[in-house]
């Protein structure tokens, strides 16, 4: 049995980021074909703000989710878990 290297706190924050990220996928696709919809744009912008805040918080605490971010030494982007290794059954 492998040891779960992610704390409950880390998983919950990642899940929250995943939720906002998905909301942005939805508003993005909708806006692609409805670029003048101000209500959808407002929603998109508020999700975007929250997403970027949570992402910065997560990356400062647990390391980069994106290679464009800064890291201490050693390069923390490579650290596990990779997305397919996370056990979402146990939170």
């Amino acid at each position: 049995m492998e040891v779960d290297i992610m704390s409950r706190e880390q998983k919950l924050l990642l899940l929250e980021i995943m939720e906002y990220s998905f909301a942005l996928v939805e508003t993005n696709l909708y806006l692609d074909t409805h670029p003048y919809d101000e209500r959808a744009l407002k929603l998109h912008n508020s999700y975007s703000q929250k997403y970027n805040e949570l992402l910065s918080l997560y990356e400062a605490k647990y390391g980069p989710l994106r290679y464009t971010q800064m890291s201490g030494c050693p390069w923390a982007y490579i650290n596990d878990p990779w997305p397919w290794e996370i056990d979402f059954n146990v939170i």
Partner: protein
Amino acid sequence: MWLYEKKLQYPVRVNTTNPALAQMIIEQFGGADGELSAGIRYLTQRWTMPTNQGKAILTDIGTEELAHWEIIGTIVWKLVKDASIDQIKGTPFEAHYVNHGKSPYPHDASGVPWVAAYINSKGDPIADLHENMAAEQKARATYEWLINVSDDPGVIDALRFLREREIVHFQRFGEALRIVQEELDRKKYY
């Protein structure tokens, strides 16, 4: 270009090791109407799409399909990663195992490898957007058959999410088709 984010689009929860189910799920990893076909199809069609709405929707849905391909690969991996040889022997996954071990590979549930002939890019936006709408419906149907043969609550949950995405994509491609059609009609002069 693309920017990878080290997270799945949807959390994959698999309850029980099940190589036989993995072999069925792999249909959407490398089958004709699977996520790889979808991603390559839409991203390939972008160069000849005339409207900005159309270019954006092909780019963004194509990109989302690659995230779905990652979800499917993760479901397959989680279904087989802890499987013993005895759990693999005699299942439909055994033939996959002797070639690929436990790695996912883009073939369909019957083992037929993915080919580019599954997709088209016709250089004609009306033809392409109709192909895409049909592709989304075929993928939706595949997810329904997969849900019918699945008995793992975690797997069914992820399959339901992916099925819903096909419906949203169908809707968006329909809107893009209408926009392109209006644009082409506007350009006609008599």
